[in-house]
């Protein structure tokens, strides 16, 4: 007997989100931004590497999409979540992570006012803050790759927090451990590479068909 597949609105939303991100440009941009954060964290001299992707990244990605993505798979604009609700959600999650970090530091070391402790564990805390982003992307797209990135991110944060770097250097707040720089550098490189590979694969798999031209 032929069965008509059921129609699932949430699944449709996921498929559309997945479709709209499969060119890899979002990931590539995130990778560039993370490398920019790493560079700016290491020295203020590299601050433009963080500012430029932040300010112009969206516009550059949109220009590339207009030229290369939309002629291949079409254009779609996703419904924006209610901004206020989204911002409240993000802030709440970040606060929760910081609270859990403070409790963990207190239980483990009996002190949450020691700045060096926070710096030492900053790779793991940063990874936990970014975990929310990956989980949100996984929820929206159903793409398991984001789960893998979430796991990798936490592992990198954990390992870098355990490794002691003897090359700590003075920075804005007086002391800086390079662990968090390595975290952003490593994760940024992973995102940049995977975004680039996806982008090239996307262009290869989705040639522009002359009859698809609107």
């Amino acid at each position, binding site marked *: 007997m032929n069965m008509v597949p059921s*129609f699932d*609105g949430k699944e*449709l*939303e996921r*498929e*559309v989100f997945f*479709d709209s991100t499969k060119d890899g440009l979002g990931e590539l941009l995130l990778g560039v931004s993370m490398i920019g954060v790493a560079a700016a964290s290491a020295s203020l001299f590299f601050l433009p590497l963080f500012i430029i992707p932040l300010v112009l990244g969206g516009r550059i990605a949109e220009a590339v999409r*207009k*030229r290369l993505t*939309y*002629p291949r*798979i*079409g*254009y*779609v*604009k*996703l*419904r*924006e979540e209610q901004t206020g609700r989204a911002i409240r959600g993000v802030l709440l999650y970040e606060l929760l992570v910081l609270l859990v970090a403070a409790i963990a530091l207190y239980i483990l070391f009996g002190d949450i006012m020691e700045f060096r402790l926070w710096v030492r564990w900053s790779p793991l805390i940063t990874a936990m803050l970014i975990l929310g982003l990956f989980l949100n992307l996984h929820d929206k797209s159903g793409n398991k790759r984001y789960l893998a990135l979430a796991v990798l991110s936490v592992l990198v944060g954990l390992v870098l927090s355990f490794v002691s770097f003897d090359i700590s250097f003075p920075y804005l707040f007086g002391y800086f451990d390079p662990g968090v720089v390595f975290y952003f550098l490593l994760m940024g490189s992973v995102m940049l590479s995977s975004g680039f590979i996806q982008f090239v694969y996307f262009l290869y798999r989705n040639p522009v068909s002359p*009859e*698809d*031209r*609107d």
Partner: protein
Amino acid sequence: MSEPETNDGISSPIMGIDRLIHEPARFSIMAHLYVVEEADFLFLSRRIGLTRGNLSAHMRKLEEGGYIEVRKGFMGRRPHTVLAITEKGQEAFKNYISDIKNALQGFE
């Protein structure tokens, strides 16, 4: 509430279903536009698997019904057609889903 009656005098809950949305291709167009803010012709034809002619015909019917709005412009030098669901369309789609559920209540 009395059940809708057809021209043949047949009275059944299913007769009150919005026929503009009930057609499978138009339902798919409406469902896609319901979950996004807007999408272009190529995106929808790819996703739904309709030929350009078919999509164009269904698009016109939905536009005439006031369920979608169609914006024609250019992307670069190429003509570009963007579709978005209207408030009336959103309401109609929500009603359609609830009507279908009600009409088929009791069937497994």
